[in-house]
Protein backbone atom coordinates (compact mmCIF):
# COMPACT_ATOMS: atom_id res chain seq x y z
CA UNK A 1 0.00 0.00 0.00
CA UNK A 2 1.61 3.22 -1.15
CA UNK A 3 0.19 6.64 -0.51
CA UNK A 4 1.40 10.19 -0.25
CA UNK A 5 0.86 12.74 2.51
CA UNK A 6 1.32 16.48 2.59
CA UNK A 7 3.61 17.82 5.28
CA UNK A 8 0.70 19.69 6.86
CA UNK A 9 -1.14 16.38 7.28
CA UNK A 10 1.83 14.92 9.12
CA UNK A 11 1.84 17.78 11.63
CA UNK A 12 -0.23 16.78 14.64
CA UNK A 13 0.00 13.04 14.00
CA UNK A 14 0.67 10.97 17.13
CA UNK A 15 4.09 9.35 17.43
CA UNK A 16 3.40 5.77 18.53
CA UNK A 17 5.84 3.14 19.79
CA UNK A 18 5.56 -0.23 18.07
CA UNK A 19 6.79 -2.20 21.10
CA UNK A 20 4.43 -0.65 23.67
CA UNK A 21 1.59 0.93 21.71
CA UNK A 22 1.94 4.26 23.49
CA UNK A 23 1.51 7.70 21.94
CA UNK A 24 4.67 9.28 23.29
CA UNK A 25 4.51 12.56 21.36
CA UNK A 26 2.96 14.30 18.39
CA UNK A 27 4.57 15.95 15.39
CA UNK A 28 5.05 19.68 15.88
CA UNK A 29 7.04 20.74 12.81
CA UNK A 30 9.09 19.32 9.99
CA UNK A 31 12.83 19.86 10.15
CA UNK A 32 14.97 20.14 7.04
CA UNK A 33 18.66 19.67 6.37
CA UNK A 34 20.51 22.42 4.54
CA UNK A 35 20.27 20.44 1.31
CA UNK A 36 16.48 20.33 1.60
CA UNK A 37 16.27 16.74 2.82
CA UNK A 38 13.85 15.97 5.65
CA UNK A 39 15.88 15.69 8.84
CA UNK A 40 12.98 14.70 11.08
CA UNK A 41 10.42 16.29 13.37
CA UNK A 42 10.19 18.52 16.38
CA UNK A 43 7.65 17.23 18.86
CA UNK A 44 4.85 18.33 21.12
CA UNK A 45 3.65 16.51 24.20
CA UNK A 46 0.36 14.76 23.65
CA UNK A 47 -2.89 16.28 24.71
CA UNK A 48 -4.38 19.67 25.27
CA UNK A 49 -1.78 22.21 26.44
CA UNK A 50 0.88 19.65 25.54
CA UNK A 51 3.72 22.05 24.90
CA UNK A 52 6.96 21.49 23.10
CA UNK A 53 9.19 18.56 23.96
CA UNK A 54 12.96 18.85 24.21
CA UNK A 55 13.43 15.71 22.18
CA UNK A 56 13.62 15.46 18.40
CA UNK A 57 12.63 12.56 16.18
CA UNK A 58 15.34 12.23 13.53
CA UNK A 59 14.49 10.69 10.17
CA UNK A 60 16.68 7.63 10.74
CA UNK A 61 14.55 6.67 13.76
CA UNK A 62 11.21 6.85 11.95
CA UNK A 63 9.91 3.34 11.29
CA UNK A 64 7.01 4.56 9.14
CA UNK A 65 4.78 7.53 8.43
CA UNK A 66 1.12 6.71 7.86
CA UNK A 67 -2.15 8.60 7.70
CA UNK A 68 -2.95 7.70 11.33
CA UNK A 69 0.41 7.84 13.06
CA UNK A 70 4.17 8.16 12.89
CA UNK A 71 5.54 4.83 14.07
CA UNK A 72 8.82 4.39 15.98
CA UNK A 73 10.31 1.19 17.39
CA UNK A 74 10.46 2.39 21.01
CA UNK A 75 10.58 5.58 23.04
CA UNK A 76 14.38 5.33 22.92
CA UNK A 77 14.08 6.58 19.34
CA UNK A 78 13.43 10.13 20.57
CA UNK A 79 16.74 11.98 20.85
CA UNK A 80 17.49 15.10 22.82
CA UNK A 81 17.85 18.21 20.67
CA UNK A 82 21.54 18.95 20.72
CA UNK A 83 21.54 21.98 18.50
CA UNK A 84 21.60 20.16 15.20
CA UNK A 85 22.42 22.11 12.08
CA UNK A 86 19.02 21.36 10.62
CA UNK A 87 16.31 23.94 11.05
CA UNK A 88 12.60 24.12 11.09
CA UNK A 89 10.84 24.73 7.80
CA UNK A 90 7.34 25.14 9.13
CA UNK A 91 5.20 28.15 8.47
CA UNK A 92 6.75 31.24 9.90
CA UNK A 93 9.73 29.22 11.10
CA UNK A 94 12.77 28.65 9.04
CA UNK A 95 16.08 30.13 9.86
CA UNK A 96 19.19 30.40 7.77
CA UNK A 97 19.73 28.32 4.69
CA UNK A 98 17.51 25.34 5.44
CA UNK A 99 14.26 27.14 4.80
CA UNK A 100 12.14 25.18 2.32
CA UNK A 101 8.62 26.59 2.59
CA UNK A 102 8.45 29.84 0.67
CA UNK A 103 11.38 29.00 -1.62
CA UNK A 104 10.85 30.22 -5.16
CA UNK A 105 10.76 27.46 -7.77
CA UNK A 106 12.58 28.42 -10.97
CA UNK A 107 13.62 26.57 -14.10
CA UNK A 108 17.21 26.32 -15.27
CA UNK A 109 16.53 29.03 -17.82
CA UNK A 110 15.17 31.31 -15.13
CA UNK A 111 11.39 31.16 -15.39
CA UNK A 112 9.59 31.42 -12.05
CA UNK A 113 7.02 28.64 -11.55
CA UNK A 114 5.78 29.52 -8.06
CA UNK A 115 6.70 29.13 -4.39
CA UNK A 116 6.90 26.02 -2.24
CA UNK A 117 3.93 25.78 0.11
CA UNK A 118 4.35 22.22 1.38
CA UNK A 119 6.27 19.01 0.99
CA UNK A 120 5.02 15.56 -0.02
CA UNK A 121 5.99 12.55 2.07
CA UNK A 122 5.77 8.91 1.04
CA UNK A 123 3.73 6.72 3.41
CA UNK A 124 5.22 3.44 4.50
CA UNK A 125 8.69 2.55 5.69
CA UNK A 126 10.97 5.28 6.93
CA UNK A 127 10.66 8.97 6.23
CA UNK A 128 10.98 9.83 2.55
CA UNK A 129 10.44 13.22 0.92
CA UNK A 130 9.14 12.69 -2.62
CA UNK A 131 8.19 16.14 -3.79
CA UNK A 132 6.97 19.65 -3.18
CA UNK A 133 3.65 21.41 -3.43
CA UNK A 134 3.92 24.83 -4.97
CA UNK A 135 1.60 27.78 -5.39
CA UNK A 136 1.75 29.23 -8.88
CA UNK A 137 1.41 32.90 -9.69
CA UNK A 138 -2.22 32.36 -10.74
CA UNK A 139 -2.94 30.93 -7.23
CA UNK A 140 -3.38 27.36 -8.49
CA UNK A 141 -1.32 24.57 -6.92
CA UNK A 142 0.99 22.09 -8.58
CA UNK A 143 3.38 19.36 -7.49
CA UNK A 144 7.04 18.90 -8.30
CA UNK A 145 8.51 15.42 -7.89
CA UNK A 146 11.76 15.41 -5.96
CA UNK A 147 13.81 13.66 -8.67
CA UNK A 148 13.25 16.73 -10.85
CA UNK A 149 15.15 18.89 -8.39
CA UNK A 150 18.45 20.26 -9.67
CA UNK A 151 19.37 22.17 -6.55
CA UNK A 152 17.88 23.93 -3.54
CA UNK A 153 19.40 26.81 -1.66
CA UNK A 154 17.05 28.09 1.00
CA UNK A 155 15.70 30.74 -1.33
CA UNK A 156 15.31 28.92 -4.64
CA UNK A 157 14.54 25.45 -5.94
CA UNK A 158 15.90 24.93 -9.45
CA UNK A 159 14.20 22.41 -11.74
CA UNK A 160 14.79 21.41 -15.38
CA UNK A 161 13.13 23.53 -18.07
CA UNK A 162 10.98 20.64 -19.32
CA UNK A 163 9.24 20.43 -15.93
CA UNK A 164 7.43 23.69 -16.64
CA UNK A 165 5.20 21.81 -19.07
CA UNK A 166 4.92 18.67 -16.92
CA UNK A 167 3.78 20.02 -13.55
CA UNK A 168 1.40 17.66 -11.78
CA UNK A 169 -1.76 19.24 -10.52
CA UNK A 170 -2.77 16.65 -7.96
CA UNK A 171 -1.13 14.06 -5.76
CA UNK A 172 -2.30 11.24 -8.02
CA UNK A 173 -0.27 12.76 -10.81
CA UNK A 174 2.65 13.14 -8.48
CA UNK A 175 2.36 9.45 -7.60
CA UNK A 176 3.14 8.64 -11.22
CA UNK A 177 5.92 11.16 -11.21
CA UNK A 178 7.66 9.56 -8.25
CA UNK A 179 7.19 5.97 -9.44
CA UNK A 180 10.75 5.69 -10.76
CA UNK A 181 11.99 7.02 -7.46
CA UNK A 182 9.93 4.50 -5.49
CA UNK A 183 11.31 1.70 -7.64
CA UNK A 184 14.72 2.95 -6.69
CA UNK A 185 13.79 2.71 -3.01
CA UNK A 186 12.76 -0.89 -3.31
CA UNK A 187 15.89 -2.13 -5.04
Amino acid at each position, binding site marked *: *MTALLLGRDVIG*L*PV*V*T*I*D*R*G*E*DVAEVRELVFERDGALAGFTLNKRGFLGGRMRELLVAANV*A*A*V*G*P*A*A*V*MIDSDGCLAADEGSTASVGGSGGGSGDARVFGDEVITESGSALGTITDVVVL*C*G*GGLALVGYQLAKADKSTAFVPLPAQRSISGSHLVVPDELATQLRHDLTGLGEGVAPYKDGLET
Partner: protein
Amino acid sequence: MTVNLSELIGRKVVAVDTAEQIGAIGHVRVDPGTGRITAMTVGKGRKAQVVSPDAVRAIAGDVVTVTSAAALREADGDDERALAGGDRDLLRRRVLTTAGYEVGAVADCEFDDDGVLQVVRTTEGEHPAAAFRGVGSYAVVVAAADT
Protein backbone atom coordinates in the same frame (compact mmCIF):
# COMPACT_ATOMS: atom_id res chain seq x y z
CA MET B 1 -10.32 -25.98 22.22
CA THR B 2 -9.89 -22.26 21.99
CA VAL B 3 -10.60 -19.44 24.39
CA ASN B 4 -11.91 -16.04 23.34
CA LEU B 5 -10.58 -13.08 25.25
CA SER B 6 -14.06 -11.59 25.48
CA GLU B 7 -15.19 -14.72 27.34
CA LEU B 8 -12.08 -14.94 29.51
CA ILE B 9 -12.57 -11.40 30.83
CA GLY B 10 -15.10 -11.68 33.66
CA ARG B 11 -14.75 -15.46 34.00
CA LYS B 12 -14.96 -16.67 37.58
CA VAL B 13 -11.69 -17.59 39.30
CA VAL B 14 -11.70 -20.50 41.77
CA ALA B 15 -8.85 -21.58 44.07
CA VAL B 16 -8.37 -25.34 43.81
CA ASP B 17 -7.04 -25.72 47.37
CA THR B 18 -10.16 -24.31 49.02
CA ALA B 19 -12.70 -24.56 46.17
CA GLU B 20 -13.67 -20.97 46.90
CA GLN B 21 -14.39 -18.37 44.26
CA ILE B 22 -11.87 -15.58 44.70
CA GLY B 23 -13.08 -13.18 42.04
CA ALA B 24 -13.25 -12.80 38.28
CA ILE B 25 -10.64 -12.13 35.59
CA GLY B 26 -10.23 -8.39 35.10
CA HIS B 27 -7.27 -7.81 32.78
CA VAL B 28 -5.02 -10.01 30.66
CA ARG B 29 -1.51 -9.22 29.49
CA VAL B 30 -0.21 -10.84 26.32
CA ASP B 31 3.51 -10.82 25.58
CA PRO B 32 4.07 -9.47 22.05
CA GLY B 33 7.17 -11.61 21.55
CA THR B 34 5.70 -14.99 22.39
CA GLY B 35 1.96 -14.34 22.18
CA ARG B 36 1.59 -15.94 25.61
CA ILE B 37 -0.59 -14.67 28.42
CA THR B 38 2.06 -13.57 30.90
CA ALA B 39 -0.18 -12.20 33.63
CA MET B 40 -3.82 -11.71 34.54
CA THR B 41 -5.57 -9.76 37.20
CA VAL B 42 -8.42 -10.86 39.40
CA GLY B 43 -10.70 -7.89 39.75
CA LYS B 44 -10.42 -4.46 38.18
CA GLY B 45 -9.48 -0.98 39.26
CA ARG B 46 -7.92 -0.43 42.67
CA LYS B 47 -8.94 -3.88 43.82
CA ALA B 48 -7.17 -5.63 40.94
CA GLN B 49 -4.68 -8.24 42.08
CA VAL B 50 -2.12 -9.89 39.85
CA VAL B 51 -1.97 -13.62 39.38
CA SER B 52 1.15 -14.91 37.67
CA PRO B 53 0.67 -17.61 35.03
CA ASP B 54 2.53 -20.31 36.97
CA ALA B 55 -0.27 -20.23 39.57
CA VAL B 56 -2.93 -20.75 36.91
CA ARG B 57 -4.14 -24.32 36.39
CA ALA B 58 -6.56 -23.86 33.54
CA ILE B 59 -8.27 -21.06 31.65
CA ALA B 60 -10.30 -22.94 29.08
CA GLY B 61 -13.08 -24.37 31.25
CA ASP B 62 -16.18 -22.78 32.69
CA VAL B 63 -14.07 -21.20 35.38
CA VAL B 64 -10.39 -20.23 35.64
CA THR B 65 -8.66 -22.34 38.27
CA VAL B 66 -5.66 -21.14 40.26
CA THR B 67 -3.60 -23.04 42.84
CA SER B 68 -4.50 -20.90 45.81
CA ALA B 69 -5.87 -17.52 46.84
CA ALA B 70 -2.38 -16.93 48.23
CA ALA B 71 -1.12 -16.73 44.64
CA LEU B 72 -2.77 -13.31 44.28
CA ARG B 73 -0.67 -10.25 45.01
CA GLU B 74 -0.68 -6.50 44.62
CA ALA B 75 0.48 -5.05 41.31
CA ASP B 76 4.20 -4.36 41.53
CA GLY B 77 6.22 -2.22 39.14
CA ASP B 78 5.17 0.01 36.26
CA ASP B 79 4.22 -2.83 33.95
CA GLU B 80 1.91 -4.58 36.42
CA ARG B 81 0.35 -1.29 37.47
CA ALA B 82 -0.29 -0.55 33.78
CA LEU B 83 -1.89 -3.97 33.49
CA ALA B 84 -4.09 -3.39 36.54
CA GLY B 85 -4.99 0.05 35.20
CA GLY B 86 -6.22 -1.44 31.93
CA ASP B 87 -3.42 -0.06 29.73
CA ARG B 88 -2.57 -3.53 28.42
CA ASP B 89 -6.15 -4.44 27.53
CA LEU B 90 -6.61 -5.54 23.96
CA LEU B 91 -10.39 -5.47 23.60
CA ARG B 92 -11.82 -2.41 21.84
CA ARG B 93 -8.35 -0.85 21.54
CA ARG B 94 -7.61 0.91 18.23
CA VAL B 95 -5.31 -1.07 15.94
CA LEU B 96 -2.40 0.56 14.09
CA THR B 97 -0.10 -1.14 11.63
CA THR B 98 3.65 -0.70 11.79
CA ALA B 99 3.20 1.42 8.64
CA GLY B 100 1.07 3.95 10.54
CA TYR B 101 -2.38 3.01 9.23
CA GLU B 102 -5.40 2.61 11.51
CA VAL B 103 -7.16 -0.69 10.77
CA GLY B 104 -10.14 -0.76 13.12
CA ALA B 105 -10.34 -1.80 16.75
CA VAL B 106 -9.84 -5.14 18.49
CA ALA B 107 -13.10 -7.10 18.49
CA ASP B 108 -11.72 -10.25 20.11
CA CYS B 109 -8.63 -12.43 20.47
CA GLU B 110 -8.43 -16.18 20.31
CA PHE B 111 -6.08 -18.24 22.50
CA ASP B 112 -5.34 -21.94 22.66
CA ASP B 113 -5.78 -23.93 25.89
CA ASP B 114 -2.29 -22.98 27.01
CA GLY B 115 -3.01 -19.27 26.75
CA VAL B 116 -1.07 -18.71 23.54
CA LEU B 117 -2.51 -16.11 21.18
CA GLN B 118 -3.73 -17.49 17.87
CA VAL B 119 -5.63 -14.69 16.15
CA VAL B 120 -6.44 -11.02 16.75
CA ARG B 121 -9.87 -10.20 15.31
CA THR B 122 -10.60 -6.58 14.55
CA THR B 123 -13.62 -4.68 13.34
CA GLU B 124 -12.02 -4.76 9.87
CA GLY B 125 -10.48 -8.21 9.64
CA GLU B 126 -8.08 -10.45 11.48
CA HIS B 127 -4.36 -10.68 12.09
CA PRO B 128 -2.36 -13.82 12.90
CA ALA B 129 -0.66 -13.89 16.29
CA ALA B 130 2.71 -13.50 14.60
CA ALA B 131 1.70 -10.00 13.45
CA PHE B 132 1.12 -8.78 17.02
CA ARG B 133 3.83 -6.26 17.94
CA GLY B 134 2.73 -4.36 21.02
CA VAL B 135 -0.11 -3.00 23.12
CA GLY B 136 -0.39 0.13 25.20
CA SER B 137 -2.81 2.76 26.31
CA TYR B 138 -3.01 4.25 22.81
CA ALA B 139 -3.05 1.32 20.41
CA VAL B 140 -2.48 -2.29 19.58
CA VAL B 141 0.27 -2.45 16.95
CA VAL B 142 0.30 -5.17 14.29
CA ALA B 143 2.75 -5.74 11.47
CA ALA B 144 1.70 -4.17 8.18
CA ALA B 145 0.56 -6.81 5.71
CA ASP B 146 3.56 -6.33 3.44
CA THR B 147 6.27 -6.44 6.10
